[in-house]
């Protein structure tokens, strides 16, 4: 551990990526070789083929996620901001497609896509973090209904505005906290933002995987069966506690002490678990099962499905971390 501390911040980050990609390579090679193994009977072979199909999809997602993370890091503040801005744009496009906006929302949507989104990421890229946290909830959310009102259409005014504000909240505000973590220079922790993002992603991933496994094996009574037939409080607790444990184990890559790290991971994992449920409710309302349903009206690509959980967890984690550092600096 001593020699790790002796490295510079960027060397430590480079090491983090070497470990991450090395692990992914080992995993991919191992799973691939396993899929090549001879099976005795037809049934076992079919089953293994099906598992391989599913595993391959998850692996590809992990590789894409890892590469994105790396590209965001090496390209610096500008690149990271641009990359996540693009993802926000694609996610919001998908969201708006599915919630069935009206004709009179046209100008409001233009403001959301071509004013609010770029400004939010510009503020993020230039590190005005005080403005960054209030720009959308204060200025943005007041500007949207004004533009809507000017469109002169009173029919379901509140509902139409709520849809657009929700889209902006999740796809722009939530997601923009991921590059903000990379860019935020905490006192005494400069240049190590990648570790915080890594911490966030690992906690969310661990809690989601644990929750998924728990849902499959436990088969508890669902708490909100009309929204999700699989979501149960016990599975949520298992996911959240696993996420907290993962955060506790990773405390040494963060500036936090073990207890603080546990608490933050708990909050983050809890937000992620409930975030998944809220997204399911939105999907049910829109009448699609997956955001990326192939046969759906739009042919959306399913990006929202992958980042929705992160959109909920990122702001919660970002603000907890920011308060922690504000307290530590005092």
């Amino acid at each position, binding site marked *: 551990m001593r020699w790790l501390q002796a490295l510079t911040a960027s060397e430590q980050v480079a090491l983090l990526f070497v470990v991450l990609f090395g692990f992914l390579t080992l995993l991919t090679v191992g799973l691939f070789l396993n899929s090549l193994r001879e099976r005795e009977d037809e049934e076992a072979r079919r089953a293994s083929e099906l598992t391989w199909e599913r595993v391959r999809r998850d692996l590809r997602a992990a590789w894409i996620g890892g590469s994105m993370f790396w590209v965001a890091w090496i390209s610096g503040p500008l690149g990271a901001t641009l990359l996540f801005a693009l993802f926000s*744009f694609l996610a*919001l*496009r*998908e969201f*708006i*497609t599915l919630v069935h*906006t009206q*004709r009179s929302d*046209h100008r409001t*949507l*233009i403001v959301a*896509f*071509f004013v609010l989104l770029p400004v939010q990421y510009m503020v993020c890229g230039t590190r005005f973090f005080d403005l960054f946290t209030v720009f959308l909830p204060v200025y943005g959310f007041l500007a949207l209904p004004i533009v809507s009102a000017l469109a002169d259409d009173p029919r379901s005014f509140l509902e139409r505005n709520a849809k657009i504000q929700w889209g902006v909240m999740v796809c722009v505000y939530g997601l923009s906290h991921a590059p903000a973590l990379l860019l935020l220079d905490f006192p005494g922790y400069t240049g190590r933002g990648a570790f915080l993002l890594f911490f966030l992603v690992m906690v969310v991933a661990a809690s989601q995987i644990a929750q998924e496994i728990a849902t499959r094996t436990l088969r508890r009574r669902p708490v909100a069966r009309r929204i*999700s*037939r*699989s979501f149960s409080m016990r599975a949520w607790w298992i996911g959240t506690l696993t996420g907290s444990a993962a955060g506790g184990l990773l405390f040494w890559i963060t500036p936090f002490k073990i207890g603080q790290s546990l608490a933050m991971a708990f909050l983050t994992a809890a937000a992620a678990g409930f975030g998944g449920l809220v997204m*399911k409710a939105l*999907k*049910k309302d829109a*009448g*699609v*099962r997956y955001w990326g*349903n192939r*046969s*759906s*009206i*739009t*042919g*959306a*690509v399913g990006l929202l499905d992958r980042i929705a959980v992160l959109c909920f967890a990122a702001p919660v984690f970002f603000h907890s971390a920011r308060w922690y550092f504000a307290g530590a600096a005092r």
Partner: protein
Amino acid sequence: MTLAAFTGQVLSFIARLITGAQGHWKGCPPLAEQRIYIANHQSHFDLVLIWAAFPHELRAQTRAIAAKDYWTKSAFRRWLTTAVFNAIYVSRTRSSPDEDPLEPLAEALAAGDSLVIFPEGTRSAQGHPMPFKSGIFHLAEQFPHVPLIPTWIDNVQRVMPKGEVVPVPILCTVTFGAPLQLRPGESKADFLCRAREAVMEQRPDPAAVGRLAEAD
């Protein structure tokens, strides 16, 4: 790469960024054979969208139709329609009673090109397409070997409603159905009705998707 080809690339990139421009080849593969695509028409964006949904190889030999009076007004418009889109000009008003407005289309088909036609003749604001004009019947009669591909462009009216200039990013799909041919002895009205129904059949069904959504 010429300037025209570059402009084409940029336009199709913008169309993809804003709408996704996904082509769903449900009834036929994207072959580079001679075809007539008949599509619903809801927005000025339709043509760029259908063009961006084509694979690259199909774009060069698939020609759209442009109104002569509007698209030859300025040098830029003429360049855009001829060099970039390789469009065929059709005059909306007849200068003499003998003039056949379909003649340029027949010429292009005789030369082996594919066509994109919006048989409603104008943009329809409502969900259902308007009755088809008889042009496609005459073309199908003259060129019985060329299959007609019914095509539905979905969601595009939300991207750019009538009267707006800035498009809003919303995902659109272009669905291509099974080829259609004129049956021996089929009357004009029957054929036009059948073609219109074939186009409407390609519309993705939100209700069916909703039913699938029950399982969770």
